[in-house]
């Protein structure tokens, strides 16, 4: 086969991988929309906030240091040691101890960040959405816009606006094994980024875990009951507040995963919140209420936009990816408003 065909295949493969990254963000939207009917505009900012918190803990940054220094005239920025260094084994430690230290130095901050996201979920429910029960969806949506701006400013105040490198030990760069194997087989070495492979594995684990959780756990069944009919769920003793805190917590943890993946790719900076823009066409295509739909939608958008850029982009000046993603989503909205896997919208008179 000519190199152009292989290149097209390589572009397609990388498009699928990019789609997985979009799907990671879209998953958080789906979880909250499915359980509460709220389109959470703040999902991208939640990913940013989670990534900022994780870097802060890893590097031992003092939260609100700008504020503290401004009020008390101090000059504090970092603790003597970040959690990463705190668990790092000293010189002369055995290989196992060193490895354990490295794992704990990352795992503990990740778990603490997850805990912060749970606290955030509780606060959001307690301070905002509990007071908005029964309001029209547009009011709830507007509340999430307010939440997004609040959280962005809060993250800035807490951790600062400077760009931060995020290294949690994920492999990056070309997968040399795949390149070698494909080169030997086809005479064309395929490029796949190791980080994208990790993202695909993590996304697969997330989807399986979330599906199993919602199908077979007690809370998962309660969550589905609330999603189906709030009032019926309330009548059988399911606490709406508890379920909403639960689902916002899970969405927060999914945001953390997305924040880690995207933050490892581009550094943690405030533009990270814009990844939500990439999730919107995925949601329109896959459906707002389907977890597998988010993945399939992500794959279609990722692959489609890359192939379109490859085949059509050069004819129209390039940079077509965002345009294509939204146009494809628009076409789906026209012919299948609920998306590929969304629940069919039926209004009975």
């Amino acid at each position: 086969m000519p190199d152009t065909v292989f290149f097209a295949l390589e572009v397609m493969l990388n498009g699928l991988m990019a789609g997985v990254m979009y799907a990671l963000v879209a998953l958080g939207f789906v979880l909250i929309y499915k359980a509460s009917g709220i389109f959470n505009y703040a999902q991208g900012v939640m990913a940013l906030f989670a990534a900022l918190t994780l870097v802060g803990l890893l590097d031992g940054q003092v939260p609100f240091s700008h504020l503290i220094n401004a009020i008390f005239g101090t000059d504090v920025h970092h603790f003597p040691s970040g959690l990463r260094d705190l668990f790092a084994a000293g010189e002369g430690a055995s290989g196992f101890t060193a490895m354990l230290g490295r794992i704990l130095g990352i795992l503990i901050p990740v778990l603490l960040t997850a805990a912060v996201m749970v606290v955030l979920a509780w606060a959001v429910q307690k301070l905002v959405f509990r007071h908005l029960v029964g309001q029209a969806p547009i009011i709830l949506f507007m509340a999430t816009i307010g939440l997004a701006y609040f959280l962005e400013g809060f993250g800035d105040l807490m951790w600062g606006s400077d760009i931060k490198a995020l290294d949690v030990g994920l492999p990056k760069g070309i997968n040399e094994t795949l390149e070698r194997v494909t080169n030997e087989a086809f005479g064309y070495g395929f490029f796949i980024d190791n980080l994208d492979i990790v993202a695909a594995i993590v996304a697969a684990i997330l989807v399986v875990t979330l599906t199993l959780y919602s199908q077979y756990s007690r809370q998962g069944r309660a969550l589905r009951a609330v999603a189906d009919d709030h009032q019926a769920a309330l009548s059988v003793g399911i606490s709406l507040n508890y379920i909403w805190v639960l689902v916002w917590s899970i969405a927060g943890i999914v945001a953390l995963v997305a924040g880690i993946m995207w933050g490892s790719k581009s550094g943690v900076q405030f533009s990270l919140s814009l990844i939500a823009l990439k999730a919107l066409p995925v949601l329109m295509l896959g459906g707002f209420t389907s977890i597998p739909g988010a993945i399939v939608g992500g794959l279609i958008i990722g692959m489609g936009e890359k192939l379109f850029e490859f085949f059509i982009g050069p004819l129209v000046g390039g940079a077509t990816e965002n345009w294509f993603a939204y146009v494809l989503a628009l076409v789906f909205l026209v012919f299948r408003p609920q998306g590929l896997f969304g629940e069919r919208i039926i209004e009975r008179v």
Partner: protein
Amino acid sequence: MRKTLTALALVMAGAVPALADIVVPNLSYRTGPFAANGIPYADGFADYFTLLNERDGGIGGEKIQVPECETAYNTEKGVECYEATKGTGAVVYNPLSTGITYQLIPKVTADGITLYTPGYGRTSSANGKVFANVFNYPANYWDGASIIIKNMLEQEGDSLEGKKIALIYHNSAYGKEPIATLQALAAKHSFELVEIPVDSPGQEQKSQWLQIRRDKPDYVIMYGWGVMNAVAIQEAVAIQYPMDHFYGIWWSGSENDVVPAGDAANGYKMISFHGTGADYPVYTDLKKYVYDAGKAAGDGSNPGNVLYSRGMYAAMVISEAIRKSQEIAGHAAVTPAEVRDGFEALDLTEARLAELGLPGFAQPIKATCDDHGGPGTAMIFQWDAATKKWNAVSDWLGADTEVIDPLVAADSAAFAAENAITERCN
């Protein structure tokens, strides 16, 4: 009620600059997706004026007020900031945004205020015959492209014939600026130019870098901003593109762009029209009068970095233009029109830069009625990941005026024709 109104009036009086002060609004962006770049620039800009106020009592005895207005790098907000502050006696604007600059050019021209856009904005505003109120010295986007090509020529034995050079650019008015210049240079030096646009903000660039991997260009030039830069450098690392063949314009060459890639960014090159680092004598005074006095604009982490240095450079040039305007006018409380005259008569010499504590930091500028673009010179710097420093790897290089000047003349002539502007300086 009267007491309340009196209190309110007092508060408002405190919120606006005193009438005798010279006002230089700082249209900054400390929030939003581009905050990481906006903050150090705004800090450098503010700290330099604070130094002048604290050490010298201002310029010519007039304190300089630098009220900040947040634009979030948003053009509409930038215009709002201009409208909100121009009535305070503002003499010059430096919005750090090409989009805002394009919107402000007709406004400042009508209002008689100066727009100073060092290294950004509308390139052809270097032509003072058409753009009376806009100054973009010491260098513009087209100079930058030309100087990068000149550095490549030096490395390739003065010939780029048959070479392939890729331009990866932000798909915006800013990113497209160098295309015409590079096309002209490609024709002159017989190299092939590959243009690769990236959708804003540029967080996902896989297809662009797969194209670069396939096409194997000899060099890559980047015109990016914000997250696009960091992602591009990481993608270049991922496809194992040689970093010393990858050049960024000055807006694609700050610590923010290389730090996320870690050690792998070692060797990346960028072009700058000023020096970097905190080794200049001016930092001794900044430390004494600004940082240690608790009057710094930021948290102390930025002094010496590329964007802080650039903000400080802009403030230094503005302050020298104000000083010149006072000299011409014969009084200290200069008007916006007099400050414009000061910009047009600016003569910033090497000796003066040394007096300011910035020896060798930048090249001299001698503005004239028709030359608002300055010397068009810059240096190439290379990132050393181990020491986390930019090291100069070239002397000051000048742009290819044979190519640039006709482009500036043609673009400014088109602007003059569109806006019925009669050329000055004849």
